[in-house]
């Protein structure tokens, strides 16, 4: 039950990120066409920025679970299983701590912005806190997924990202370089 709910949450977050990606492409092309016929899309840059934040923060969890976030594996892959497990627990726990703190302050920032009623400065003024919800939602889901992986580790099992990293060592995946 719990497992299913979590997986559905992660899947929804990833699908939302993909939707934002498609939205960026559509918005950019609409903006170009609009300029061509002399009717520019108002505040398109603001919207594109918010979609970018949406794609990045909401896609964070999918990336974690597909082993996409990169780290230096030189030491980890060269130590014995017991110290490796200890290191993995240390890293996962530190990540929970770091992301947890960031989530806390990001939420506080969003609530402050809402309380002050700040607006963007573009042609179409928008409430600034609304797009910040993408960041907060994405971070919360990311935090939950990190705790999930930490629990998996503590129960003596292999985190998903480690399994994916091992698979990646035998296939060609996507990188930025």
């Amino acid at each position, binding site marked *: 039950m719990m497992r299913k709910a979590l997986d559905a949450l992660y899947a929804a977050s990833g699908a939302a990120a993909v939707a934002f990606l498609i939205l960026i492409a559509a918005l950019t092309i609409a903006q170009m066409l609009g300029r061509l016929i002399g009717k520019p899309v108002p505040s398109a840059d603001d919207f594109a920025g918010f979609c970018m934040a949406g794609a990045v923060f909401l896609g964070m969890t999918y990336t974690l679970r597909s082993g*996409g976030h990169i780290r230096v594996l030189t030491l980890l892959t060269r130590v014995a299983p017991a110290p490796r497990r200890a290191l993995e627990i*240390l890293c996962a726990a530190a990540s929970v701590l770091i992301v947890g703190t960031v989530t806390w302050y990001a939420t506080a920032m969003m609530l402050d912005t809402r309380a002050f009623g700040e607006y963007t400065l573009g042609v179409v003024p928008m409430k600034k806190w609304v797009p910040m919800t993408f960041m907060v939602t994405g971070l919360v889901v990311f935090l939950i997924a990190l705790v999930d992986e930490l629990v998996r580790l503590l129960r003596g099992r292999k985190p998903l990202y480690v399994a994916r990293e091992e698979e990646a060592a035998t296939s060609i995946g996507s990188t930025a370089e």
Partner: protein
Amino acid sequence: MDLTLAALLMLGFLLVALALGLWIGLALLVTGAAAIAFLTPAPVGVMAATAIWGDSNDWTLTALPMFLWMGEILYRTRVSDGLFRGLAPWLGGIPGRLLHVNVFGCAMFSAVCGSSTATCATVSRIALPELRKRGYPEPITIGSLAGAGTLGILFPPSIIMIVYAVAADVSILHLFIAGILPGLLVTALFSTYILGYGLARGDAIPRETGVTWRQRLRGLRDLAPCLVLIVGVIAGMFSGVATATEVGALGVLGALIIAALMGTLNWRTFIESAYSAVAVTCMIGLILQGSSVLSASMAFTGIPKALAQWVATMQLNPYVLIGALCVVYLILGTALEGVGMILLTTSIALPMVVAAGFDPLWFGIFIVIMTELSTLSPPVGFNLFVLQLMTGRDQLYVTRATIPFFLLLVVAVAILAVFPEIVTWLPKKVMAR
């Protein structure tokens, strides 16, 4: 606290965090946060949240997912098959023969793809079996594919250039345009080497049967999809009206049309390509967020400025400075991949390089070539890894085969350091319009 001590402590802390296996983005983030907390009176949490949000909702970043997506769509088509069939009849007659297809195939594909690894994998996937079937010597085949694959990030579009442009606050399009002549320089160096190899060891290279003009013209048809996209991307870049994101979005559209015409477009490949693009975007996004916090801490502590002043007082010869940076990046490149390397170093190194009289665009190209070298550096060089998997050879064999091309890239850096105009001339022309 003394700034030198503070800088060394930060560096040590960061290296430990990285070595222990913390994600690169989080390692940068926590190092930056620690520096703010211990070295400045500023409130850490608020500053970190502001820096992260401020750098994440920037529309200029949207160029990143667009070019990534374009590459992911093309990777799932058969554009590369056409590249080999199209180029082979044109290049089979010159010394070095079909080895030139590796270089020119990579150069062409890199003009539509922003990643070295994808360029290397895409061209190798088709060229490697063909060259093996004909009995080409394996080391130079492997070396030229790994080496020329790195052109992926030197010819525009380039994911690494977008990351640097965002970090250094220069125009993405100007940096793209700055990469064209250096890209041609590296292509020329590589094919000259192959030409020399062909002349010296001509007997090792299998002969081609006679090629007719009819076959050559048919080859052009195979190249057409790629050529149309290249012309589109370049026209968009030089048009002066389109933004980098717009060029990228048009690239996505063009790639989708090509995929549809080639019959490789279906719901599955569409969704897969989108998820892959999201994954790489978020991978870079997390590192960007960490580096936002680190850069904010740098600005507060004043370490980069102090470092730039210190380097300035030493009255170093600019070439000595570039040589020293070269060594630093070669070492960093053995452990870190390009995005982490660039976002970690740009805010620190750029002030001193600019103080030494180099253009930020020039330093961008320098850092791109350093990233290319890192993809050829063991133990974690991605292009080495691609060819290890594809040939079944071990890393030592592949690395050894790649050494000549590694050295040629170093030669390219030296040429660019002596003649920086190769980088800056073209973008200046465009800016002057």
